[in-house]
């Protein structure tokens, strides 16, 4: 059991966390803790040890040049008291006592169940991108990218750059909404540039709107024992017409949801699934700040600005933080439009059939869950949400499908070896 005493602790080394670290380091000693082997979070995930994004590289270099301490491969799972977090590292338990905390835990993908979604070969959209960045070859693989959100475009673009055959992008929102969103980008020249770059890179990839996956399947006949059944085709529906497409991989995710578990465990106020913060990114607890996606999904620019504001405000640089409020408003506007554009349509609630698994950890099917009125009862009777993912995957799905409030969070917020408790 080791212990560190830290002036400003930042949990999460992605865009918001790194931005916060640099801002705070002007006035205080800063430590970043991240559960990944390298800095960058999800959007700037390292590829074989290095992030490709020039913007990310600049931040990482800047961080290296200050005295900012980085602790990688460390997962926060619990707390000893209001100002002390417990983490699991490769060397065992590490306690982190802090004066100020900035929560920059980012977001995860929303997954919705549909028949066949548990087949090997079905990945998240960001999931497949993460694996590709972790070294997975997608060269020559036929891939369908599906779900919702601008992430689909970014993923399709990335996969194409790795010589995958991106067969189609299947987007559930309507083309009218996408067009309105695109028109609204006029406020942000950099976003327009990004959009144009994506558009041209994906010129030859069909972008189906008002479309979604109705099932993933393995249609090949049962082979000998020991051969894993995996995905070989998906079925898409658009305006009532279905089509089955052969493919090697499906990269499917329905936009993002905030990782609020750490904030909730600490007792920060959470409203509508996001961490409540004031203008200075301060949570309901005085010495805890929060920046980036946990305060509301709003994209990279928002994360960077919010991180900077949090880092400045947490270290008493209030004038400097206030100077950024205008920029943040612009970024927030984009975020708001983003979430409205890609809001989930009702038809997606009916994708799962009776046998479709909703809780993947405990294999609880849709029909077993339908009869319950809230998560707690469903959990106690079926074990839904009691597996190692602790409801991270099924909780959001159940909220969308049944309207249940997600379960409360309790330490450990990640599974941890008994000896590290």
């Amino acid at each position, binding site marked *: 059991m080791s212990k560190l005493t830290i002036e400003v602790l930042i949990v999460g080394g992605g865009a918001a966390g790194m931005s916060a670290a640099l801002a705070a380091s002007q006035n205080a000693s800063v430590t970043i803790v991240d559960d990944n082997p390298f800095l960058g979070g999800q959007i700037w995930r390292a590829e*074989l040890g290095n992030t490709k994004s020039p913007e990310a590289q600049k931040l990482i270099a800047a961080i290296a040049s200050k005295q900012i301490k980085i602790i990688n491969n460390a997962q926060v799972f619990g707390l000893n008291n209001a100002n002390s977090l417990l983490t699991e590292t490769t060397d065992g338990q590490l306690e982190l006592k802090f004066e100020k905390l900035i929560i920059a835990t980012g977001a995860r993908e929303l997954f919705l169940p549909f028949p066949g979604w548990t087949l090997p070969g079905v990945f998240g959209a960001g999931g497949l991108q993460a694996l590709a960045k972790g070294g997975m070859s997608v060269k020559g693989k036929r891939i369908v990218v599906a779900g919702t959100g601008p992430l689909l475009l970014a993923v399709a673009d990335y996969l194409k750059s790795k*010589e995958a055959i991106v067969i189609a992008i299947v987007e559930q929102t309507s083309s009218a909404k996408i067009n309105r969103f695109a028109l609204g980008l006029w406020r942000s020249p950099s976003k327009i540039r990004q959009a144009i770059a994506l558009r041209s890179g994906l010129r030859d990839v069909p972008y189906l709107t008002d479309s979604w996956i109705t099932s993933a399947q393995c249609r090949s006949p049962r082979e000998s024992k020991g051969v894993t059944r995996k995905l070989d085709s998906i079925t898409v529906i658009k305006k009532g017409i279905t089509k089955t497409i052969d493919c090697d991989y499906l990269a499917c995710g329905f936009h993002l949801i905030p990782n609020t578990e750490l904030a909730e465990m600490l007792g920060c106020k959470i409203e509508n699934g996001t961490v409540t913060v004031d203008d200075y990114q301060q949570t309901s607890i005085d010495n805890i700040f929060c920046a980036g996606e946990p305060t509301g999904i709003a994209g990279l620019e928002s994360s960077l600005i919010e991180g900077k504001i949090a880092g400045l405000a947490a270290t008493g640089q209030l004038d400097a933080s206030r100077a950024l409020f205008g920029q943040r408003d612009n970024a927030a506007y984009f975020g708001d439009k983003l979430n409205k554009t890609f809001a989930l349509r009702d038809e997606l609630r009916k994708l799962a059939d009776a046998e479709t698994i909703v809780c993947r950890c405990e294999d609880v099917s849709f029909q077993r869950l339908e009869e319950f009125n809230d998560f707690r009862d469903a959990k106690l009777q079926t074990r839904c949400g009691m597996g190692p993912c602790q409801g991270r995957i099924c909780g959001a799905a159940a909220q969308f499908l049944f309207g249940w409030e997600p379960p409360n969070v309790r330490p450990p917020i990640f599974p941890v070896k008994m000896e590290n408790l």
Partner: protein
Amino acid sequence: MCRIYRHEDSPNIDNVIALKINNNSISVDDGTTVAVAILAAGVSQFRHSVSGESRGPLCGMGVCFECRVTIDRVAHQRSCSIIAQDGMEVVTDE
């Protein structure tokens, strides 16, 4: 049998990690995750679900727990979040 798996952008022929997946030797670039090494070895079933379904990675970022395998005799490790190291012995569910 030792198989070399290269990521197309692999920078350096010397930075290669040798590990075992279900007793088969495989080599991957330094920085490759264990999950990717498993997939590169041709294994798509990482684990059996509670009702016996074959499962593999989904989220790629350590929150879904579908990529759990046994590494060096410690079970239930999230392979998508662990960088492959020389000499690792990885076992997936049969």
